[in-house]
């Protein structure tokens, strides 16, 4: 009956006509293959709501969250609260992008294909890499896929990853590695270069999870000397100001593209950036858009090098990825084209400048120190005698959100002490900074904490 599924167009008259054309009296006659006792299960799902009811129900749920915009907010890392220009969602969420699928029919999918080709081009320029694919799921899976690719390229089964790589990436990597049973070795970044022997790749993050700047070149050199690849995890805004991975010797570059105009959305959907050197492209996972011409000689774009992919090569494919994050790639391209080089640099600079100013103020407080031992980018690690988790909870009670360093858990074991990480972006205000400094001053003095039971 029309009315149960409000998106279904079939009227009772339609259904009757369709059944009669099929030649059955009831849909049940078509279900003969299903074990009778399994047919028509009672699900126990509540009755359907109207759109208005759904809207108000979800508004109620949403109000149970404290959003990043509700108060001073310093959580960041791979996923960052950044300013999203108004034109970004207006363009990227147009129905023609949003409700299309993988461009299997390129003649009627040039919008997608050209936009993705442009994403690849923009990202390649930003990273100074030869080839960028059209997206992976996220930074974590991209890191794991980079390790797998290095294993394919080198024929080796040991992957060495720095402990200062984002902990979520390391967790995903370790989890993925259980499949092919790779050896994952976690060492501090400082020991990476000396751990290259027999490795398929060294995985380094720059700036690292704590914001520290890393000398990637030296690590890449060590990797190459040992016949390993250098995989760099990076962040897009950092690449606007820092020497890009392609100039540092990275063979594969991965990262999270969310800061490029994509909403945080509690973790996804986001954008796995994946780039490599030209020579490695046939081992690359994921879809790649390429330029060509149509029968009239008009320029057009297609998904190309598909013999790497699961739908052609099945178990011999470079990856199992099918549905990817094309819309996020298009979103990132819209963002980059709106900001341009100067806007991107400005956003990045604001984060760096505010992080440094804030770090200075915090370091001047009694019993507070910045734990980064080398120059940092737009986030830093604050160490107090209170301890990271307690400090974090004390700040939450004051309406301020920061992250404690889960990252200090290596291979599941706690190593070193817990701190908080303070991320700044162009959205960090003076008032935010003041609030944090005040609150930390109080908490570090009083040692007050919030029960965590």
């Amino acid at each position, binding site marked *: 009956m029309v009315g149960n599924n409000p998106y*279904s167009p079939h009227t009772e008259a339609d259904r009757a006509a369709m059944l009669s054309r099929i030649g059955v009296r009831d849909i049940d006659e078509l279900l003969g293959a299903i074990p009778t006792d399994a047919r028509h299960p009672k699900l126990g799902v509540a009755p359907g709501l109207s759109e208005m009811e759904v809207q108000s129900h979800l508004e109620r749920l949403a109000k149970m969250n404290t959003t990043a915009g509700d108060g001073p907010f310093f959580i960041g890392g791979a996923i960052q609260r950044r300013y999203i220009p108004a034109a970004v969602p207006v363009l990227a969420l147009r129905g023609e992008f949003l409700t299309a699928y993988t461009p299997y029919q390129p003649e009627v999918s040039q919008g997608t294909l050209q936009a993705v080709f442009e994403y690849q081009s923009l990202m390649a320029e930003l990273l100074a890499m030869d080839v960028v694919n059209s997206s992976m799921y996220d930074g974590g899976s991209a890191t794991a896929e980079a390790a797998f690719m290095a294993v394919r390229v080198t024929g080796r089964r040991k992957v060495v990853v720095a402990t200062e790589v984002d902990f979520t990436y390391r967790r*995903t990597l370790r989890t993925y590695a259980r499949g092919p049973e790779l050896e994952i070795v976690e060492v501090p970044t400082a020991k990476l270069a000396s751990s290259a022997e027999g490795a398929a790749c060294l995985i380094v993050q720059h700036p690292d999870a704590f914001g520290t700047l890393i000398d990637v070149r030296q690590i890449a050199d060590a990797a190459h000397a040992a016949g390993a690849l250098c995989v760099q995890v990076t962040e897009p805004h950092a690449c606007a100001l820092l020497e890009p991975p392609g100039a540092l010797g990275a063979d594969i570059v991965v990262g999270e593209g969310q800061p490029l105009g994509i909403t945080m959305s509690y973790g996804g959907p986001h954008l796995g950036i994946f780039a490599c050197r030209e020579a490695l492209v046939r081992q690359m996972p994921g879809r790649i858009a390429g330029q060509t011409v149509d029968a009239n000689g008009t320029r057009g774009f297609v998904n190309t090098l598909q013999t790497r992919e699961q739908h052609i090569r099945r178990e011999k494919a470079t990856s199992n990825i099918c549905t990817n994050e094309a819309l996020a790639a298009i979103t990132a391209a819209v963002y980059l084209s709106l*900001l341009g080089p100067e806007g991107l640099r400005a956003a990045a600079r604001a984060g760096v400048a505010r992080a440094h100013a804030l770090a200075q103020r915090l370091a001047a407080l009694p019993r507070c120190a910045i734990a980064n031992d080398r120059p940092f980018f737009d986030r830093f690690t604050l160490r107090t005698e209170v301890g990271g988790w307690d400090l974090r909870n004390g700040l939450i009670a004051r309406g301020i959100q920061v992250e404690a360093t889960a990252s200090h858990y290596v291979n599941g074991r706690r190593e070193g002490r817990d701190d908080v990480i303070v991320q700044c972006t162009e959205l960090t205000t003076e008032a935010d900074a003041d609030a944090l400094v005040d609150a930390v001053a109080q908490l570090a003095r009083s040692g007050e904490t919030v029960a965590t039971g």
Partner: protein
Amino acid sequence: MTIRTQVIPDVGAKTPVPALEPLLFELARPGRSGRHVRTNETAAIPDAFQRKAPLRLPELTEPQVVRHYTHLAQLNYSVDTGMYPLGSCTMKYNPKVNDRVAALFADVHPRQSYRTTQGVLALAYELEQMLVKITGMDFVSLQPQAGAQSEFTALLVFKAYHAKRGEAAQRRRIIVPDTAHGTNPASAAMCGYEVTTVKSDARGNVDLDALKSALGPDVAGFMLTNPNTLGLFEERVREVCDAVHAAGALVYGDGANMNALLGVARPGDLGFDCLHINVHKTFSTPHGAGGPGAGPLCVKAHLRPFLPKPWIVRESDGTYHYDTAREDRAPAPLGDSIGTIKQRLGNFGVLVRAYAYIKTLGEEGLVETGRDAILSANYLLALLRPAYDVAYERPPMHEFVLSAAKQKKQGASALDISKALLDEGFHSPTVYFPLIVPEAMMIEPTETEPKETLDAFAAAMLRIAERVTTDPAAVRDAPKHAPLRRLDEVGAARKPVLRYKADA
């Protein structure tokens, strides 16, 4: 049939060849910009780290960017513009309210405390329960970000399960039917398994004898899509599952075709140990020009210990947290879990949409959806049967596979027909899949296409079949009314141009 023409101006961009729309880079002029973000702050970056490589991103104004993407969007076929009967992809209508409510959760960071994300956790917890009810499984992980990642996750779970029983080393093989989607063998291989393919029988089922002889103590699992990629319900599904279980292996359910089973049957009642759900198919979330999706993994209780961590816990007072004590002072205790696939709740923004959709449909709406999907497919098949060969003659579920083998002999292949459909104003079906049907055309109308659109699609398909008999060359020459004629894919692969280069 109507043809819509729109003219876009030559905006003076220098393109090396004729083009529908210049590239961003061709539209750019040095010195242009918007003012979305600005600062006069300077960044204290040691010289050795500073970028010296040029940063040749295009410089454009917002008006240029808006026109560019508006033009590009208009070059796309999409569900919002027409019927998109891509088999196995469930291109149903994507309700707009789902996008709106998803935006309510846009400004929440995944590393926030449970204290500040009770709304997120409540929604996710309830979604898990709803998926349990719909699939007949016992537990759900929301982490996988698409079907393929869910397959991989499930195979990791299989591995951990067998390891727990001391059989990991022995069980090195995954069996897939010859109708399996490419991601199935690819996931198995990625997970370190060898892949064995078993053939289908004459009724489009797994050949049970072939399966039984492939099964053995070295088999970790069997991956089954049901209804399978022929759109057919596995007639002896319980026997299949029993056989696999008897060999000590597990049955993986590829839920890409779950739309057919909504309220019609539950995989959990049929013998599957686990099932992935493509929420971008079954639960109406937009496909985003290729993605995002989400691929929750639903499992029976015996596989629960191996699911990715963390898990959501609901306290008796109605509050929620993860299973890392009450706060994530430490990573979730792994126990037997395989680890973490995606921090916390996967593609949460997609899951919110699925949640809203299920809330909207409710029990009766879900039932109606499955039944209407089946009705539409059978109806369309009845209309097309006069002109095209049908791969397997028994009532399909939500989709069906035709063969253009006859047309191919007459001079136009499935590919040619798919292009001719573009000229008729329709997106084409999935072609050349599944692999076991020659000149396969896999058609999934979904429940949201009205009968008159199905009629119009059928009329177009019959016109094309007719034209194949009279003028196959014209069909081979299609499309003529799409934004582009056929593209040179061979050339694209032979000399790959994968990015714009200023000097190219």
